């Protein structure tokens, strides 16, 4: 990587003395003010996008909190400290926040559609809204996947502990059988055989874990609709949405064709007087555009 800014400044100061330099009637400041006023929608879109981004980040933070809460529940039978939320509370918070983000994304999509209807699909604000919307939809999906993964990891950890505790009381259970037991809720099957302190402790642990798994599955069930909505959202956008080339080439084709035609005329047939005329006209036409 070569930095040539200093070199540029040299060229600038060298050429300041020469008469061939474009005479700059307008200062940079004037040029800035001469430009069209900034689009209020643009500011609004970018602000909203940033807010949504922060909300998604907040969901990620809550997933971390959930990880801790799950871990604590796994390693102590007693309830977590008063000031900390338990897994269910966090789960509810994540669900509500996720649903809120989804709503905001729908609104952003509607705004984009309105901009497109009013200004056409080559309008920069519309396209910026599109880019942000697609990226944020993806981000929401990623964060929901992360939530699912976190809960599934915890479920697996609980299952393993149940398996270990059952071994402690001399009852070895295979994976498949354990799954069946957990699903049917018949883990108290061996409670009648429980005797002695160790066995009792194992029984309590297992009961706790089983309860957690049930609560976890309830949480997942409760958020299923959100998963579905997010999946529909990303499916609608199509798989190649992340592709930069597609994003660049999707801008209005009609204008592009016109520009390409002009390019062709300019580059490939400079000698043709008829086309020379066309070039001049089209260049002026370009300026008007």
């Amino acid at each position, binding site marked *: *990587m*070569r*930095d*040539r*800014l200093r*070199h540029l400044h*040299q*060229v*600038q100061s*060298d*050429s300041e003395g*020469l008469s061939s*330099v*474009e005479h*700059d009637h*307008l200062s*940079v400041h004037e*040029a*800035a003010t*001469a*430009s*069209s006023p*900034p*689009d209020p929608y*643009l500011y609004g879109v*970018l602000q909203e996008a940033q807010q949504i981004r922060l909300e*998604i980040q907040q969901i990620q933070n809550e997933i971390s909190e959930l990880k801790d809460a799950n871990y604590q529940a796994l390693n102590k039978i007693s309830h977590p400290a008063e000031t900390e939320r338990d897994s269910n509370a966090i789960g509810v918070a994540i669900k509500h926040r996720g649903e809120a983000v989804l709503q905001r994304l729908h609104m952003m999509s509607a705004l984009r559609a309105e901009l497109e209807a009013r200004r056409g699909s080559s309008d*920069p604000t519309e*396209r910026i809204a599109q*880019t942000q919307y697609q*990226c944020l939809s*993806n*981000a929401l999906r990623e964060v929901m*996947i992360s939530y*699912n993964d976190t809960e599934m990891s915890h479920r697996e950890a609980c299952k393993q502990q149940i398996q270990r505790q059952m071994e402690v009381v001399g009852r070895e259970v295979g994976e498949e059988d354990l799954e069946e037991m957990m699903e049917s809720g018949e883990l108290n099957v061996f409670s009648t055989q429980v005797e002695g302190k160790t066995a009792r402790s194992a029984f309590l642990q297992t009961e706790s874990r089983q309860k957690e798994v049930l609560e976890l599955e309830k949480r997942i069930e409760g958020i*299923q609709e959100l*998963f*579905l909505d*997010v*999946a*529909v959202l990303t*499916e*609608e956008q*199509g798989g*190649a*949405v*992340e*592709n*930069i*080339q*597609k994003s*660049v*080439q999707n*801008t209005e084709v009609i*204008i*592009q064709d016109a*520009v390409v035609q002009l390019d*062709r005329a300019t*580059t490939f047939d400079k000698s043709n007087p008829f086309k020379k005329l066309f070039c001049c006209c089209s260049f002026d036409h370009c300026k008007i*555009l």
Partner: protein
Amino acid sequence: AGGSAGCSSFSAGCPSPSAFFVLSVKKDGEWKVLIVDHMSMRILSSCCKMSDILAEGVTIVEDINKRREPISSLEAIYLISPVEKSVHALINDFKDAAFTYKAAHIFFTDTCPDGLFTEIGRARVAKVIKTLKEINVAFLPYEAQVFSLDDPNSLYSFYSSKPNKDKDKMIENLAEQIATLCDTLKEYPAIRYRKGPEDNARLADEVYQRLTAHKADNPSMGEGADKARSQLLIVDRGFDPISPILHELTFQAMAYDLLDIKQDIYTYQTTGIGNSNDREVLLDEDDELWVQLRHMHIADVTKKVTELLRTFCESKRMCTDNANLKDLSQMLKKMPQYQKELSMYSTHLHLAEACMKTFKGSLDKLCEVEQDLAMGANAEGEPLKDAMKSIVPVLLNNEIGAYEKIRIILLYIFHKKRGIGEENLAKLIQHANIQADSNIITNLQNLGCNIIAGQTLPERRERTESTYQLSRWAPIIKDVMENAIEDKLDRKQWPFICDPAPINTTQTAVSARFGHWHKNKSPTEYRSGPRLIIFVIGGVSQSEMRSAYEVTRATDGKWEVLIGSSHILTPTSFLNDLKSLDQVPNPDC
């Protein structure tokens, strides 16, 4: 969030997104516009995803050559090639009273020539330029071990029947691009070329000069004891005309040959969660399953995907007896949180099925004939006695397309070491009824292939590895790769530009700052072993790309083989390229 995981692109050379937008450019809360031209857009697109560049503070990507509306409240990053068209467009953005953007940060993909640089310095835009850098990445990292220079017209530029007056300039540009590749990889390889065609030597020489210039600016290129063994080989397309036209049965090569895959996007009909619609999937290295499957034989692909899908379903306790395509949409509705994985399995099941469907039509017989011709022997190893007998039914078959017939005819011609003779060629063309496309065959002579009088292709290495009957052929470049690595590559046929430098005994610590911006990997994964880089003039075939990976694997990681060209061929695109060689340049290109 939303960033791509996995081993995307060039194992060692792909610049990460942040490499493009060095430190000072990203400011919190300040979004920027990114402006690209065609080449830089292609480079960027092969390295980064939209979410990557959004994470770098870019909110929209514009084509510099399209009419753009001003976004005067935002600053612009120009990632462009240092060519007249792009530089003039840049200057034009700041020519009028109202500036198109608030300021400009310029990143050139390569060294900006003095003339253009001065133009910028003298224009009004200079007053609002906050950054001006040259990043020296003028190539596309297409895959971990495959690069492209994104010039599909290259075959024409080198081998057209009409003399190319811009050829010198073109070779210089090409050499510069290859030099930036070595620069990015921190390699200073010994350059060799295949003796024969003049252009091979010319290009090799020019690359050497550019490489040396780059090393003067970046002395860490080629540092490290092992690096002294790195080699760069320049070879012409005509040296192996068989590999680009053979029907391959490995997943990637087969899919690109038989199906309509444009810009690496595969489109198919499916019922997802919603209604039935077109799904577009990008086949690149972010798709972990694609990376796993792409070089596998098609017979193994469906088996593998089904097995993986079954394992996946079991692990998620999704009960399904027959994990097939129809069930997938049901699974998707029941467990939408696994949309990504399920879509991936669905895509590859569809892709494999589409390949097999097209293959079962008429191709199975064709492939048998092709392999026999290419190998000069049948599957049992018995030399081919009457090749003509096996190709005539193909040529007379009206259901077989013109291009398929041409591929067979060409393989027949190459099989005949003593050439085919004008009369016989005319007869074949007539039998096949391909007069309209017959120039494809004759144009091959522009590549140095002697159609009429015949030629001998290089002697082949003996291969003991077991192969499917219809996949016996190994690209000739594979032999070259293995020979080069074993230091057995004949110096008379593959001369060095200059004698290889003596092994440097002083080891210098390699700075992790330069060049090794692994996308998601730590600097400790810098590759210290030697590399073999192959550049094919005129296009590289998918089977040759596969060879690079196979040979690398066989060295147990001691060597890394990279291969690339101006563009990546499919048999159809190669035949189209050949067809154009005797025609006037198309102004639409």
